[in-house]
């Protein structure tokens, strides 16, 4: 009998050999922003499930072209069969880098927290340097950071330091922990302040636990070994917190890494407890609203804003909670700019050989933003905001800024500390 050749517990072919779930429908290639912009990229189907069939743990990694994958994950969002395309690409890339070594540039870009700490300690100097053409030329030649890419401004006062001096809210009915990430800590403290304020306005005390970089910059820079170390530290530091309370993140990609990638990309044991308690800030606020607990005492905010949904947001499987929240605020007109990936993909568009590609990927979005005109372009992801400001010349901010204004925090205005240099 043929049937006896199958192990009795086997459920489906896909469970036994996940790569076989790929039916080669090509939906991933069609949606891939990089494949749309350049014909030298062979696309996620070839580099993920197809190449995976030729990869064996004993042999050198098959990696040609993998660095052109920007890690936006739209391929996985699109896949009708839930093939873990990014997993195949990133693991192979990491193995290749381990075998052949990593470039200085990719090593540096993977160490966001180290970079942030140095930048923040030397803030005036670092910011001046980042605006100085000679220094940028040197940075391009020696390290490989494109000279035209505006680099984020570093802040002397970190979010951590600000929060230590911030008086705890009185009479809170519950506690929530905040995963602020490197960006809020070193580059945009104001966003963290707004998150704290909004949660406090909802009777929630914000706890700021000790934390490490989420690891995603290392993942996309072919350094999953480092990302895994970071992840393990976070799992150790934050699991006891997650056992007590929910954790919110204000960066789309950090949140996704904690929720999903620790368990499914980096295979960090015991990371599920942490992942299951992590919420995107807007997702969390919307959840409060559905329970009837969101403070709706909003002031009118007369603004016409555009909303750009970051690619990684689409991987969260939660729709666009920011859009839903913004519709609750009186006076705000919000419209989605539905023109796909902005092109920067974290550190991808910073690199000298990828800057032009990154701008080409974003060109449709830039044109739409320019044509529509608005008071601000809202995006949940920090590098999307950098790219929109650079490419479309528009003001860009996190959606929570509108909520902060609706709660009466108008004194700092939209153009706060977030604006990149140049």
């Amino acid at each position, binding site marked *: 009998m043929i049937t006896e050749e199958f192990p009795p517990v086997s459920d489906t072919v896909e469970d036994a050999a996940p790569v076989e779930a790929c039916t080669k429908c090509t939906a991933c290639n069609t949606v891939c922003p990089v494949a749309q912009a350049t014909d030298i990229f062979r696309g996620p189907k070839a580099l993920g499930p197809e190449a995976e069939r030729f990869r064996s743990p004993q042999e050198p990694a098959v990696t040609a072209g993998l660095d052109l994958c920007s890690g936006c994950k739209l391929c996985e969002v699109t896949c009708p069969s839930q093939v873990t395309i990014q997993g195949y690409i990133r693991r192979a890339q990491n193995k290749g880098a381990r075998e052949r070594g990593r470039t200085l540039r990719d090593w540096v870009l993977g160490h966001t927290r180290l970079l942030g700490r140095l930048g923040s300690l030397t803030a005036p100097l670092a910011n001046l340097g980042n605006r100085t053409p000679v220094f940028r030329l040197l940075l391009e030649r020696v390290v490989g950071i494109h000279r035209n890419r505006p680099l984020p401004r570093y802040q002397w006062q970190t979010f951590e330091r600000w929060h230590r001096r911030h008086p705890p809210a009185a009479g809170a009915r519950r506690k929530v922990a905040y995963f602020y990430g490197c960006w809020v800590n070193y580059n945009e403290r104001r966003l963290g302040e707004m998150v704290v304020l909004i949660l406090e306005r909802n009777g929630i005390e914000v706890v700021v636990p000790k934390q490490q970089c989420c690891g995603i910059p290392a993942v996309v820079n072919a350094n999953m070994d480092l990302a895994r170390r970071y992840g393990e530290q976070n799992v150790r530091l934050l699991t006891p917190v997650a056992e007590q309370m929910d954790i919110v993140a204000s960066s789309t990609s950090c949140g996704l890494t904690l929720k999903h990638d620790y368990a499914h990309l980096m295979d960090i044991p015991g990371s599920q407890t942490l992942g299951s308690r992590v919420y995107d800030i807007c997702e969390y606020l919307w959840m409060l609203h559905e329970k009837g607990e969101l403070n709706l005492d909003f002031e009118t905010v007369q603004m016409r804003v555009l909303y750009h949904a970051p690619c990684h947001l689409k991987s969260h*499987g939660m729709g666009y909670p920011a859009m839903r929240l913004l519709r609750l605020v009186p006076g705000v007109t919000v419209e989605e700019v*539905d023109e796909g990936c902005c092109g920067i993909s974290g550190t991808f568009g910073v690199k000298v050989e990828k800057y032009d590609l990154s701008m080409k990927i974003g060109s449709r979005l830039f044109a739409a933003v320019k044509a529509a005109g608005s008071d601000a372009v809202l995006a949940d992801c920090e590098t999307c905001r950098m790219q929109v400001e650079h490419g479309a010349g528009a003001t860009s901010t996190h959606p929570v800024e509108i909520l902060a204004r609706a709660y009466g925090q108008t004194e700092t205005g939209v153009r706060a500390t977030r604006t990149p240099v140049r």
Partner: protein
Amino acid sequence: MKADIAVVGSGLAALTAARAIQQAGRTVTLVWPGLSSLYFLYATIDVLGYADAGTRDAIVDPGDGVARLIAAHPDHPYAKAGSASLAQGTALVLAWLAEAGLTWKGSLSHNYLLPTALGTPKPSCLVPSTMVAGDLRHPEPIVLCGFKGYQDFAPELAAANLLRAWPGGGTVRAVRIAAPGFVADRLFTSIDLARAFEEPGFRADVAVQLRPHLRADGARIGLPAVLGLRRTPEVHADLEAALGHPIFEIPTVPPSVLALRLFDRLRKQLQESGVEMIWAAPAHAAQVEGGRCTRIALKAPGREQPVEARAYVLALEDWVDGALRAGVHHLRDPFFNTLIAEHALPIDRTADSMFSPQPVRRLGYRVTQRLQPADASGAPLAENVFVAGGAMAGYDPAGTKSRGGMAIATGYRAAQEACAA
């Protein structure tokens, strides 16, 4: 997540249902497991091409064909959806396509007969206007044009088959030209060509190469469906004007440019009109209390995310988007874990020849007269859940060329039922 009605799926049935529910004034959350064949495979909306999967007599009048099918098989999903759902659903979709700026042609009263990429005549009901000139019910000669290095359309093969299979008979010639800018060893797809066709210079070059192959015999030119992604009407009109001959598109294997144009526009329209879409979250596990479904679970990153609605439309398509889970001996559905089919051997699901009607195609949810998923005794598994599209039992969408019409009729009917539930 809460909504009046949750629709699961991203195919034509799901989109039709979402549109109909929204027009009825309810809030809709559309939950996607990933994209469906509407994104990479669709070309035309076929209502009924053949009365059953075994026959080769193409149906001329699909509206009439469905009426006969309903009379002969009262258990067919078309009978359960009702011919009124097909008529009203088709009207809704045609109006929607026009509103979305897509020019489609056709009506329930006749089928076009259009050549496939292999040169077989295929009956189709609603088609993009750029395909209409290929109608084989007309006798004008045909020139089929392919591109060197493009692997998804072989004009020589299509022409040879079409010469044999064209019912009225006619003249068919094949030509192959170079796709300017696409060098010999570059692997390219329909999508790459479609993007290139949006450039006027590329089109002009194609026209220059094609002109010597045309004679003053009123021939029409068949090209693979690559005439632009966003500016198709302009690309099509421009090329017809340059050549002075009618031009028609022929659907290709995935990625299908025709599907992409259709899906992108309809998806954007729904999103702009306020339909909440949740990407990348396969739904499963319906929780049933007192005969009603109270929630379904989304496999979101980190945790299962509940979706609560007053009614649910399950509009998944088939195996590809997870409508059914196939084990070695058992087929189950992911929402109720109900047994869809049981086989002693997995090969019992398939026919001896790959060209024969496949038993597996007819498998799917048993449904009640109101399209609720049913258990083996025919009783509903949940009062407020309704099934639409490819995952229904009792018909063969590919063999009868009825996938699109079924999606529309059942999607529309399920939407009506969900609004009433």
